[in-house]
């Protein structure tokens, strides 16, 4: 039986949503799985909506295009929800029954009563990860927010591991390079200057990945019969 998660990542320009999706996708492949990504954005500018779609599986993936009905949604910036900065509104549109929403926010958010009711009907699991705060605390800057999101989702799905994530991060900054666009390349050089050295950049990014992974484990997002990581293990054993 195929293990399959369709993940919709939504965030705003400059946060590294597409980079995050690429790193997570590569990490799944590094860990022996299959994965594809489809980025989706309009004009490249800071704080403009960005979506990226990642499919992960243990079997070949034929499907193409955007993901309308995800198993998992990842919200990189609270404004995606509070300001509707997204191609998909409300943010949980299309989420499958028993799906997971991993949201970057310091503590639970309050939704209006209709949305609360819909999320309840979906039996959606809402996980609030203080990703930007973790990035600030661990790396000293907010630009590793995407690393926190990627670390947490790695733990939640159980389809990759910290070592494979580490290799993916190193590939991204030291390898042949996956240049998404001119804008991203320019941002890369800014990030690199801020971190002075690439090695320092990689170490700090990895520290954020690990911190978020641990946060997900400590909060029980990976434990229990209904967790995706456990289902992955159960399916793999069966």
């Amino acid at each position: 039986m195929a293990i399959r998660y369709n993940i919709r990542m939504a965030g705003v320009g400059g946060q590294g949503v597409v980079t995050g999706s690429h790193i997570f996708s590569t990490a799944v492949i590094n860990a022996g799985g299959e994965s594809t990504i489809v980025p989706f954005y309009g004009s490249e500018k800071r704080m403009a909506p960005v979506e990226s779609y990642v499919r992960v599986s243990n079997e070949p993936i034929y499907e193409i295009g955007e993901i309308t009905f995800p198993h998992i949604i990842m919200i990189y910036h609270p404004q995606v929800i509070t300001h509707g900065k997204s191609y998909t509104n409300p943010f949980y549109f299309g989420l499958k029954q028993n799906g997971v929403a991993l949201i970057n926010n310091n503590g639970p958010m309050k939704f209006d009563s209709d949305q609360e009711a819909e999320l309840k009907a979906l039996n959606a699991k809402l996980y609030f990860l203080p990703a930007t705060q973790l990035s600030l605390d661990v790396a000293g800057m907010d630009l590793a927010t995407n690393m926190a999101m990627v670390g947490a989702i790695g733990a939640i799905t159980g389809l990759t591991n910290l070592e494979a994530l580490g290799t993916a991060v190193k590939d991204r900054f030291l390898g042949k390079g996956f240049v998404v666009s001119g804008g991203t390349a320019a941002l890369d050089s800014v990030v690199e200057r801020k971190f002075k050295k690439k090695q320092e950049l990689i170490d700090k990014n990895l520290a954020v990945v690990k911190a978020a992974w641990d946060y997900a484990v400590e909060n029980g997002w990976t434990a229990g019969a209904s967790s995706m990581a456990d289902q992955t293990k159960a399916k793999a054993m069966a």
Partner: protein
Amino acid sequence: MSEAVEAEVKTNPQGDPVSSAPVAPPAASGRKDPHGDAKKQREVTADHMFFEAPREREFITGSEAAKEAVRRSNVDVAIAYPITPQSETMQLIGVLYGEGYVKEYYRGEEEYGVMSAIAGASRAGVRCFTATAGPGTLRGIEPIASWPGHRLPAVAMFTCRVVNAPLAIQPDNIEIAYLLNCGMIVFHAENQQDLFDYIMKGFIISEKNDVTLPVGVACDGFFVTHARGYCSMQDRSMKLPARDPYRGAVPVLDAENPPARLSRDAPVQKSNFMAYNIHGVWQQEVWAAVERSRKYIDYYMEGLVEAQNVEGADVLIIASGSAAAQSREAVRLCTEKGIQAGFIKIRSLRPFPTNELRQLCAKAKLIVIPEFNYVGWLAKDVATAIYGFSKAKVVAGPHVYGGMSMPVEMIVDEVECGLTGKKSHTVPESHIMGTVDPAAMAQFMKSI
């Protein structure tokens, strides 16, 4: 074999861009010949290239797959009109020209000029390639529609986009509907690998004596051209045999046989035009040539269709292009829900796999045909082909258009609705054939 090839002489060497004066060739130095690798390419038989030569897998875009196919296809002329929204394909073919893999290359005025020039080049007896998309296809369609009648072998790639206003840049394969009735051979590629294979095999099938027709290789733009996928390719040191112009069904252009000969021939001429009956016979011959290409498609492309799990399946999903990729996943989801669904991918739209479908669909109870266009051209062809040979309910849908992605769940929904009789969310009843409502059936048949 390569020693026997004459040194290449450009008929239009690139001049100085300002003065147009010819630029002296660089003095022979230790510099690497940019055409060096291309000159070392050796011709192999089509059978060796397709069936025997070892392949290596690469992770490339569809446009790159098309480039690699052309690199190995011994192409003489490629003509580009870099319309947007298109793809990088013709730009990459320009790179091949720089490397010497394509002998002549230029940018046309627009698509009408490009498609007309392809006609001229093919008539002169050389192997031709071009690519266009969406509005470009329709701008070029008058000369494209004349290619089969002139019996011109060539391969044209159509990276399907939206054609009607407002424009979009993602795929909608409505333009294939226009190509289906031209008398050309039309293949529909699902992914990067198909694109690579169909282009190379297209040249060989196109130039068979009893075919002598253009081949259109369509794919759904953006999803295939701009996205990366795995593509297994033969070594680039090999190329297909060159086109033999004297093997064609009609003579190629030369000074002794002017192209106007046909319309000057008395028996053919009535007033200033061809006699109607001659034109009628000519059209019959074009479509007969389309029919005769079946055996080559069977031989080189493993058949006009690919069928999976059809035996014993009550439900069949039939698709071409990107919809085939989505359908493979739909079959997987159906299996998880306990529904046994079979899958048929249609590789060749012209000729159409009529007999294959009649056999494969004979026992099916439900057929779902997802498409990336509004009108459902594939469903109409399938329904027409199997009418009287299958009692299946045929769902002409789901459809997405204007560049939308097709969620796999939409296809699964149609399977479930079709089986349970539940009302579909997206497919109107007039697009469901074989239900008890004769009015809805009549409405659909009217639009065929």
